[in-house]
């Protein structure tokens, strides 16, 4: 019988904490099956062996923060058939994206003894701003089952079974009473993509928005309700500006409320 060649998998890192790529190693039960199904050609966290490209699948973790990064991602795209970004950093810039709202030179001179050694871009950007991305696996960190699911679906030629609806759907499916309704705790769940299984509400916390915007995020309606709950404008801005601060609607809503807070605007909607 003809045995198909095992697809070559590479795992790349940019500005990130490594948590997402480590979730691949964390797949204890599935790890052997993964290793049997794909050949791991490049994965510095796991093996020193380096197999040259091209690669069938590249998993990319982290965001672009230096000029060197910006060149390297082009090389990776050229060498990869399928490019999948994993985690909030790669898909939306991640927590380091917060520096786009501040003055980087000022940080550098405060933090480093020799600022002249630091070469960094003014802005952090997600991978999709540089190259075409075939699939995005969201989360901070990602759900390891999503990673296996994306690979399994690709190898089987089917669509990955990963939700794009809100965290609320998972929250109600698991039988959690809503923390926003029952406790008045602000929760990002209604505008955040599901995937974590609604862990935070199950432990009495509001959702932090790790998975980024859901398919139809009505952030304005949510923020207006939070204002009714007594949340300050600056805190509303901070809630949108976390792991996915740079992604579309979260970025707009975060900036809208940061401006309101800065202007000392009251809780009323200001005229346009």
């Amino acid at each position, binding site marked *: 019988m003809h045995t198909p060649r095992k697809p070559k998998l590479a795992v790349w890192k940019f500005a990130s904490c490594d948590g997402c790529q480590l979730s691949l190693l964390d797949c204890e039960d*599935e790890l052997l*099956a*993964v290793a*049997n*199904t794909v050949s791991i050609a490049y994965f510095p966290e796991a093996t020193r062996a380096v197999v040259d490209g091209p690669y069938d699948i590249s998993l990319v973790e982290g965001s672009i923060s230096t000029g060197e990064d910006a060149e390297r991602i082009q090389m990776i795209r050229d060498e990869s058939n399928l490019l999948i970004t994993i985690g909030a950093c790669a898909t939306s810039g991640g927590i380091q994206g917060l520096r786009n709202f501040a003055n980087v030179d000022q940080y550098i001179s405060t933090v480093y003894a020799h600022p002249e050694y630091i070469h960094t871009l003014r802005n952090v950007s997600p991978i999709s701003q540089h190259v075409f991305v075939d699939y995005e696996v969201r989360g901070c960190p990602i759900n390891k089952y999503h990673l*296996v*699911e994306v*690979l*399994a*679906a690709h*190898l*089987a030629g*089917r669509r990955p*079974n990963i939700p*794009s*609806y*809100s965290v*609320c*759907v998972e929250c*109600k*499916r*698991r*039988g*959690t*009473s*809503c*923390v*926003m*309704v*029952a*406790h*008045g705790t602000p*929760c990002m*769940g*209604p*505008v955040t993509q599901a995937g974590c299984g609604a862990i935070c509400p199950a432990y*009495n916390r509001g959702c932090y928005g790790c998975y980024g915007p859901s*398919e*139809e995020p*009505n952030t*304005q*309606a*949510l923020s*207006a*309700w939070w204002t009714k709950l007594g949340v300050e404008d600056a805190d509303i801005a901070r809630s949108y500006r976390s792991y996915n601060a740079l992604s579309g609607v979260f970025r707009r809503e975060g900036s809208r409320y940061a401006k309101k807070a800065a202007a000392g605007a009251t809780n009323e909607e200001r005229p346009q």
Partner: protein
Amino acid sequence: MQVLMREDFDTLIEKLQGADYEVIGPRIREGAIVLDTVDSAGDLPAGWTDEQEGGRYTLHKTDSPSLFHYTVGPASLKSFLYPSKSLLCRVYGGHNDFDVEEPEIEAPRRAFVGVRACELHAMAIQDHVFAGGRHPDPVYTARRNNIFLVAVNCSKAGNTCFCASMGTGPEATAHYDLALTEVVEDGTHYFLIDAGTKAGRSMLDELPLRPARAAEEEAGAAVVRNAAESMGRSMDTEGIEDVFFENLESPLWQEVAERCLTCANCTMACPTCFCSTVEDISTIDNDMAERWRVWDSCFTTNFSYVFGGAIRKASSSRYRHWITHKLAAWQEQFGTPGCVGCGRCITWCPVGIDITEEAAVLRRQREARQGEARYGAGTRTAY
């Protein structure tokens, strides 16, 4: 009608346990009254009462010894009879040579204590949907056949309740094995108890009961009357199908869409909403696949996905679809409204969107149009 004294309430629970039922009843968990295993009457939220508003739910402790002086919480029978996730089958093997394994259906014997009238009506609606046709749902029917229902007539109505106008409460009139009315007055605390089925009647035989006095029956009736009169909301159902079908292009839909988060909480919390989707997953080495049925909602994009894209892209069309189905199209489809007036979709909507309020706006819009047609455009009312 007979009387069960409060001090004998544990006998009821023990007898149910003795009949091999897991007893499920109201319990406080994380600031809300949910449904969970009850070992004895001591687990019930004695003295607790709830306050509900659009997007708001709070509990308060009172001095009353009453066990059931609150209305429905976020959970309903639905999650027990129609679980949010069920495995449909597992497939082993390769492309041309595979085995299909159907999992055994889990149908635990459960007795539910404290079930409200609206809840029983919601279950009857789901009975019709899942078990009524030519292809009864095996998961639902197996679970449904193994339950015992102890209803409680509501002693207060919630601020978001409107069962009285839907004709589904606050008194349980059908679908129960036993029905209770809790009376707390002048230092006495007792339950009027009545059976609705054969199983209920044999349970009555095992309980320490005495016939009710006329004054006690009157006290019980007053409890239910009080609930009916304290109903926080109402729904005018007169000609309601026309109200919706003649308002398909109402400006209201866009106005609601500005507030609606399309989060799906209303549908998930609703005890009659029954939609599901089927999800397939396979292992990475492709030697096993599973097919799951999970709760879905008409507020998600994929719900209306057909080849080429989603039909209901705009949230305005999703809300319109949901409320029109609940209050109008359901009637044609299943012979009853799809709403029992439990108020969950109002309370558990994180931004308090109110089905009774939106229906009332639509009714006013239609009436205004009719007025215009009759008396000319000069009578236009602002809405």
